[in-house]
């Protein structure tokens, strides 16, 4: 294996090199190969792991991100009176629009929760063999 350079720098000590390099080789025990192959065969025989259901998760993730964005928006909007110059950050919203936006937000949240619980129940039922 000694194909490239070997080093002997200023801190090297030939005797330390001799001791550490000339170590007796350890011979693996007789059952080592068999035990490795047994575990490999066990693993090969095991069913492949179930891939994470990204397709099913994506709508949920999108919904959660949307809900979080809406909550953040709401929090910022409600905190605006305490900010010194709100007109620079958020455009003016009339009370009528504000009211309908709030209503729509609650409706979206309720729909999302319903959708999530429906998906979750289908998944649990599918796992238990009911579907």
């Amino acid at each position, binding site marked *: *294996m*000694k*194909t*490239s*350079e*070997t*080093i002997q*720098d*200023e*801190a*090297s*000590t*030939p*005797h*330390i*090199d001799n*001791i*550490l*390099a000339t*170590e007796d*080789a*350890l*011979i*693996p*025990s007789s059952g*080592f*190969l068999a*035990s*490795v*192959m047994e*575990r*490999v*065969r066990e*693993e*090969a025989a095991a069913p492949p792991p179930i891939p994470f259901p990204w397709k099913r998760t994506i709508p949920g993730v999108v919904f959660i991100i949307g809900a979080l964005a809406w909550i953040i928006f709401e929090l910022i909007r409600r905190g605006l009176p305490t900010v010194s110059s709100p007109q620079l950050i958020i455009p003016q919203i009339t009370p009528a629009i504000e009211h309908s936006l709030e209503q729509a937000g609650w409706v979206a949240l309720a729909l999302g929760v319903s959708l999530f619980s429906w998906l979750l129940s289908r998944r649990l039922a599918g796992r238990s063999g009911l579907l």
Partner: protein
Amino acid sequence: MTTTPQTLREKTAAEDLADVDEVLAGNVAAFEGIVRRWQGPIVNMAWRYCRDRGRAEDLAQEAFLRAWRALPQWRRESSFSTWLFALSANLFRSELKRFPTVTVPLESASEPSDPASQFFVLRERERHEVLRRAVLALPLRYREPVVLFYFHEMDVSAAARTLRMPEGTFKARLSRARALLKRRFPHLETEHATLEVSTLNNGKEV
């Protein structure tokens, strides 16, 4: 026909490739060839990391299992052995971080002094073992270069490849590690020279 180390290496590499291809084609039994060829080096590498025979075999077994699982991800950019050594080193490092080996601190690794000459061999063995165990007491960043440098028979580039580290960084860490060991065992060189002389003298007297 003579077999040079170079041709032997090429033969081994070709066998590795053939076995890997077979394993990837679905022949589980072909992995046995890989384990048979590399069990010695991997067990010895694990031994140098922990100096505990039972644990070394457990670690080596886990390394082969990881290799089995990761085989489809091997991109064949380097030789199979380089990939296997790097994978094993990663595993040994993380396992030994989680469950460290029981070692004495470097400061308490004492250098045996002035034993009777008839115990020369025994003393030598003991001292060598103390030094080897002292390597395990080095900080990890210095310990690994030492372990892999001597495992790879003092081949800097092979050891640096195993650690996936630039050779310059590797040499710097190795140099620092040796300096630490030298500081811990200051009489090793002088005693070695004295003992060599006394051995020669004993030889003359007999």
